[in-house]
């Protein structure tokens, strides 16, 4: 068995992990948004097109996390040259797959909550569609940041130069992927949860949207802190070892 064969095998394994796990979050989140949109349409069939538009905008944001995973998987399959790569580099490809595969779960699920609440809010008060959509997009953006951290670490792992084949480097690149990938799950879901309730609040009490936005951003910032620790640990492992 030659080194290039081992590296190719690890590359395909990384691609599978990236897309397989990366698809979970967006699927759940978009389904939740659709569920709420169906409920809203059943209650207010007259505003079905507004609800559907809000749902599609929200779902597009939720989709972006799994698109990162798709990009990494396609890059691993087609664009990375395995000849001349070392076993360390191959394990880094698996680390990249773990980083973005697990990292996309939280963002996808998290973006579903604001989208669902926004659909309900538009059903209840169609004239408030603009402010509800704005709140949805802000909260989804925050909820998506851990997936962006994971994407960055995945790219670093794919294009970093890892010479030789030693166990310490392999553990470091795998550990970096696990840290940032798993670390993104909770923060994405939690931020989305906050965003969902904020959208619900704007739907019902639009006059209070300034106070709601402030509280949401403070809460989401605290919720994001653990994913920043995870990013820090991943960066330490990628660059210091």
């Amino acid at each position, binding site marked *: 068995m030659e080194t290039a064969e081992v590296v190719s095998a690890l590359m395909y394994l990384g691609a599978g992990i990236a897309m397989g796990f990366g698809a979970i979050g967006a699927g759940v989140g978009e389904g939740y948004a659709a569920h709420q949109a169906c409920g809203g349409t059943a209650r207010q069939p007259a505003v079905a097109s507004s609800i559907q538009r809000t749902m599609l905008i929200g779902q597009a944001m939720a989709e972006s996390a799994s698109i990162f995973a798709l990009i990494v998987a396609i890059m691993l399959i087609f664009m990375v040259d395995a000849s001349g790569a070392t076993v360390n580099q191959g394990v880094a490809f698996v680390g990249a797959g773990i980083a973005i595969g697990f990292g996309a779960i939280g963002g996808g699920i998290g973006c579903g909550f604001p989208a669902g609440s926004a659909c309900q809010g538009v059903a209840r008060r169609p004239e408030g569609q603009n402010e509800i959509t704005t709140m949805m997009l802000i909260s989804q953006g925050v909820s998506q940041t851990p997936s962006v951290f994971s994407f960055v670490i995945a790219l670093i792992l794919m294009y970093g130069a890892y010479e030789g084949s030693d166990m310490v480097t392999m*553990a470091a690149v795998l*550990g970096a992927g696990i840290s940032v990938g*798993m670390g993104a*799950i*909770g923060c994405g879901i939690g931020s989305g949860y906050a965003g969902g*309730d904020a959208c619900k609040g704007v739907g019902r009490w639009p006059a209070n949207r300034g106070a709601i936005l402030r*509280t949401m951003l403070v809460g989401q910032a605290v919720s994001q*802190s653990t994913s920043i620790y995870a990013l820090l640990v991943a960066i330490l*492992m990628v660059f210091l*070892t």
Partner: protein
Amino acid sequence: MEITGTELIRAAALLGAGIAMGFGAIGPGVGEGYAAGRACEGVARSPEHSGLLTRTMLVGQAVSESTGIYSLVIALLLIFFVKS
């Protein structure tokens, strides 16, 4: 590939650091978001109490954060103190 004992220890420590921080971050993230969601709902309903609600939310989140900080401490210990 020759694996020495010290390499094995260092490798296990680094993998362990990743697992500690990665899984350890799941809980606080979800929990703090849950608290923030309820706080948003409360502020939406009665914005005049937003100061009180934010304070309560932050205290609750700080407690929820503690396990994430334990994970960070253990991960940093594993990265920097296990040199063998």
